[in-house]
C-alpha cells in the first residue's frame, strides 16, 4: 500500500473543505458543482496533484448533493440534476416534513455515492468498453426512455405531453451547434434575436427562472400574505415528521437500482447529469409496487432522485479515467486539473498512474462521508431557512438567482434576462393549466434528443436503424414500451377511480 504515504492530514482536510464549499455552492440556486470546481481549479496548481484532486473531488461530491437543499425547501433545483428532487421534496416540506425529506436525501446521496465509487473502483475499464457500445442510436433511445416519464408524471396525460413537447421546442431555439456536429445555423428565431439567442437559452437560468422567479411572481400576485415562507412548512415536531431509518425499509431495491442507473448514465459521455435522476425517477415510478404518491411527497421519489444524482459522480469518472473523455460538465473541468499537472487521461491512465488512482478513490469515498456528516447534522439548521420571513427571503433568493444565472456561463447578461423571461413564462404556464415538470424535462432532454436522432439518421439513412442497430437497442425499446404501457394503465386506473368517486 505504497499510496498510503501520499495521504496526510492536509489531504483529508482539503477533501472535507472541498465538500463543505461544494455543498454551499450546490445549495445556492444557480451555483453548481461545475462552477465550484472551475472556480477552485487555479488553486490546484499551487496545491500539487494529490491535494488538488482531494479538493476538487470534495467540491464535486459536495456540489452535486448540495442541490437537494433548495430543491426540497424552496422548490428551486440547486443544480439541474436535482430537478426530480423537487417533485417530492417540496410537497414534503409543505407538509412540514422538510427536515425528514432532507435526511432521506442525504442518506440516499451517501449510498448512491458509495455504490458508484465501488463500481468505479472495481469495473472502470470493463464498463468503459461497455459504454462505447452506445452510439447515437442507443443514446437517443435512452433519452426517449427518460422522456417517457413525462407521460406518467403529468396529472393529465394529454396536457403533460403537450407541455413536454413545448419544452423540447424551447430547447431547440438557437443554433444547431457545430460543437455537437451540427451545421451551426440558427432556427426558431428572428434575426434581431440572434445576438442574444445564438446559443439558445441556457439550462440553468431557465430552471431557476421557471422555478424560482415564477414562484415569487405567484406569491406576489397573492400579495405575499403570510410572513413566513409557508405557514405549513413546519420543521420537525409533527408526528409524521420524525425521521427514522424505517423509511428505507422495502426501499432497498429502489436505492440500489437508482444508484446503478445514476452510475450508468453518468458513464455515458454527453448524456448528462439531469437525465440520470429523471431516468431513476421514471423507473421507480414504473417498477414500484405503489407509486401513486410519487409527485405528492413520497420519500421513494427522493431516494430515487438523490441516489441517482450522487451516483453520477462515480459514473462520470469512469469514461474520464478510462477513456480520457469526460462524462459530464464537471469532469470536463477535472480534465483541466490533470493537464495542468501534466498528467494525461486516457485508456492507460489507471495502469500508468496507480497511485493517483488510489488517491482519487480515497478522496472520493472520504468526500462522500464528509458530505454525509456535514449535511446530516447541519440539516436541522439548514431547514430553518423556511422560517425566514418572505419579505427578507424573496429578495435574497432573487439576488442569488441573478448571481447564479450570470455566473453559470462565466458572465453573460442575457442569462439574467432569461431568468425573467422564464419566470414570466413559468407563471403563465401554471395559470393557463399547462404542467411545469414535463415542460422542464422536455427542455432538459430536447436538444440531446435532436442530436442523437438526427445524427443517427444522417449516418444510417433509414429509420429502421433504431430497431436493428444492436441488442442493446432492443432492450431499450422493451423498457420504453413497458414505461409507456405502465403510464397508460396508471392513467386509466386513476380515471376509473375518479369516475367511481363521482358516482359514489
Amino acid at each position, binding site marked *: 500500500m505504497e499510496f498510503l504515504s501520499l495521504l496526510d492530514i492536509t489531504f483529508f482536510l482539503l477533501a472535507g473543505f472541498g465538500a463543505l464549499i461544494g455543498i454551499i455552492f450546490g445549495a445556492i440556486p444557480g451555483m453548481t458543482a461545475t462552477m465550484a470546481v*472551475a472556480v477552485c*481549479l*487555479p488553486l490546484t496548481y499551487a496545491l500539487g496533484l494529490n491535494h488538488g484532486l482531494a479538493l476538487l473531488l470534495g467540491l464535486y461530491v459536495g456540489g452535486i448533493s448540495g442541490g437537494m437543499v433548495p430543491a426540497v425547501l424552496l422548490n428551486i433545483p440547486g443544480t439541474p440534476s436535482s430537478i426530480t428532487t423537487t417533485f417530492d421534496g417540496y410537497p414534503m416540506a409543505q407538509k412540514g416534513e422538510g427536515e425528514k425529506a432532507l435526511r432521506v436525501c442525504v442518506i440516499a446521496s451517501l449510498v448512491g455515492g458509495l455504490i458508484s465509487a465501488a463500481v468505479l473502483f472495481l469495473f472502470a475499464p470493463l464498463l468503459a*468498453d461497455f459504454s*462505447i457500445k452506445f*452510439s*447515437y442510436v442507443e443514446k437517443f433511445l435512452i433519452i426517449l426512455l427518460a422522456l417517457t416519464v413525462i407521460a406518467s408524471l403529468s396529472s393529465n396525460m394529454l396536457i403533460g405531453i403537450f407541455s413536454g413537447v413545448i419544452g423540447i421546442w424551447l430547447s431547440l431555439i438557437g*443554433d444547431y*451547434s*457545430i*460543437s*455537437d*456536429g*451540427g*451545421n*451551426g*445555423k*440558427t432556427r426558431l428565431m428572428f434575426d434581431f434575436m*440572434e*445576438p442574444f439567442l*445564438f*446559443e439558445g437559452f441556457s439550462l440553468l437560468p431557465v430552471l431557476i427562472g421557471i422555478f424560482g422567479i415564477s414562484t415569487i411572481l405567484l406569491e406576489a400576485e397573492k400579495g405575499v400574505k403570510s410572513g413566513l415562507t409557508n405557514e405549513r412548512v413546519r420543521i420537525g415536531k409533527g408526528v409524521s415528521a420524525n425521521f427514522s431509518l424505517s423509511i428505507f425499509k422495502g426501499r432497498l431495491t429502489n436505492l440500489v437500482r437508482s444508484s446503478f442507473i445514476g452510475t450508468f448514465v453518468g458513464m455515458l*459521455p*454527453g448524456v448528462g447529469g439531469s437525465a440520470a435522476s429523471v431516468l431513476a425517477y421514471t423507473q421507480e415510478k414504473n417498477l414500484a409496487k405503489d407509486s401513486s404518491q410519487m409527485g405528492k411527497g413520497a420519500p421513494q421519489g427522493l431516494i430515487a432522485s438523490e441516489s441517482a444524482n450522487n451516483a453520477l459522480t462515480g459514473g462520470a469518472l469512469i*469514461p474520464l479515467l478510462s*477513456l*480520457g*473523455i*469526460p462524462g459530464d460538465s464537471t469532469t*470536463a*473541468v*477535472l*480534465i*483541466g486539473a490533470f*493537464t*495542468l499537472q*501534466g498528467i*494525461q487521461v*486516457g*485508456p*492507460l*491512465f489507471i495502469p500508468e498512474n496507480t497511485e493517483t488512482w488510489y488517491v482519487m478513490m480515497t478522496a472520493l469515498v472520504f468526500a462522500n462521508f464528509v458530505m454525509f456528516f456535514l449535511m446530516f447534522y447541519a440539516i436541522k439548521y439548514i431547514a430553518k431557512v423556511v422560517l425566514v420571513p418572505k419579505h427578507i427571503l424573496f429578495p435574497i433568493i432573487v439576488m442569488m438567482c441573478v448571481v447564479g444565472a450570470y455566473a453559470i*456561463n*462565466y*458572465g*453573460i447578461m442575457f442569462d439574467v434576462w432569461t431568468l425573467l423571461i422564464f419566470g414570466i413564462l413559468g407563471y403563465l404556464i401554471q395559470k393557463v393549466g399547462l404542467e411545469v415538470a414535463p415542460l422542464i424535462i422536455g427542455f432538459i432532454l430536447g436538444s440531446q434528443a435532436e*442530436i442523437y436522432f438526427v*445524427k443517427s439518421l*444522417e*449516418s444510417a439513412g433509414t429509420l429502421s436503424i433504431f430497431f436493428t442497430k444492436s441488442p442493446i437497442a432492443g432492450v431499450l425499446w422493451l423498457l420504453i414500451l413497458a414505461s409507456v404501457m405502465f403510464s397508460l394503465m396508471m392513467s386509466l386506473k386513476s380515471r376509473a377511480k375518479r369516475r367511481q368517486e363521482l358516482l359514489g
Partner: protein
Amino acid sequence: MTISKKTFIGLGSVAMMASLTFGAGIAQAQDGQLRGNIRVVIGSTSTGGDTYQNSSIVVDKLAEHLDLNMKVDAVGASSAFRTLDRDSRGNTLMIFHDQSYLGHLYGVQGYSDIFEEYTVGPTVAINPGNAYLVPKNSPYETLDDIIAAAGNGETVRVAIQPGGVSEIGFSALKNAIAIEHPGMEDNLVAVNTGSQADKNQQLFDGQADVINGTVQANEQFTRLPEDDQKAMRFVWLTARQDTIEQAPEEGLGQTSREQLLEYVEPNVHVTMGDDETFTFDKEFFFLYNKDMDPGIVAQIDEALAEIYAEGEIQEVQKNAFFIPNFKPSGEASEYLYEKMSRYEEIIESIK
C-alpha cells in the same frame, strides 16, 4: 410605528444616487494604458480545454507583470465576440485560435472577418497536437494509402467537427486528392460530428475510417494492443516540422518527439500544388476591439516581449505541450492574414 411612504422612497433613491456618484470618479484615469479589472474572454466554453489552459498561462503571467487584476472567462465564441464588440476601453480582451477566421472561411453563422472587425493582437503559443488517426487494424498504413484509396474510387469516411480547425486538414486532404487524382475527391467523405468523444465513437462504431483528433487526447489510444476495439494509430500530424521539433524531447506520454516527427511533413506529404505542402499549426492569439486605444496594444506587446525574454513562460507552456510562439501584434496580424489566404484558396478550390 409605521414609516411613511415618502421617507421610504427617499431612502431608496438616496441609496441609488449614492451608488451612482460614488463610482463615476473611478472610471477616469490616464489614457493608453490598461486599468482596472481586465477580463479575457475566450472562444471556448470549456475550462478543461487547450484554449482555456493556454490563455490562463499567458494571462496569469501578464497580470503579474502588469500588476493588474485579470481573469479568463470561458464564454464561447459567439458570446466572446459580442462582449468584445461592446467594450473598446480595453477592459475586455479576447484570446482565440485559428477557428476565429476558419469559421468565417467556412461560412459558419456568427463568424465575421476578424481582420476587418477586430484588431489582431500578438500570437502566444501553438498547440501542435492536431492529428488524424485510423484504427490500429486499418488497411491504411499511411496517409498516402488514404489518398491512393480515394483516388482508386474507394470511399473513405473522415469524422470531423465541421466548420473550423477540425475540418481544415480534411479540406486540405480533399484538395490533395483533387490535385493528384482529379475528379476523385468526392470519395473522401466528411462524417460531421461533435466532440472528441463523438469522433472516437464514430471510429469504434465503424462509422468512420479516419478521425480527426489530437496528440494529447488520443496518444494513449495509440498504445493499446491491436486486438482492443479502441486501439488507434496516428497517420498524420498537421503541424509544421519545425513546430514539432521544438516540443520537449520526451514528447507526450510514451510517444517521443522522434516518433511524432514520423507523422509530420516531409514524411507525410499533403500537396497544395506547386510543390507546396499543406501544414496547419493551431495558433493562439489575442483579439482586440477595433476602437481600442493603440497605446494598450503597444503596452501588451511590450509586456509580452518582456515576459518571453525572461524565458520562464516557455517552460510552463512546454510542460503543458504548447509550443511558445510570441509574435507582436503587427507581425502576427500580417502572418495570420497570409495564413488565412492560403487556407482560403484550399477551401475555395474544393467547393
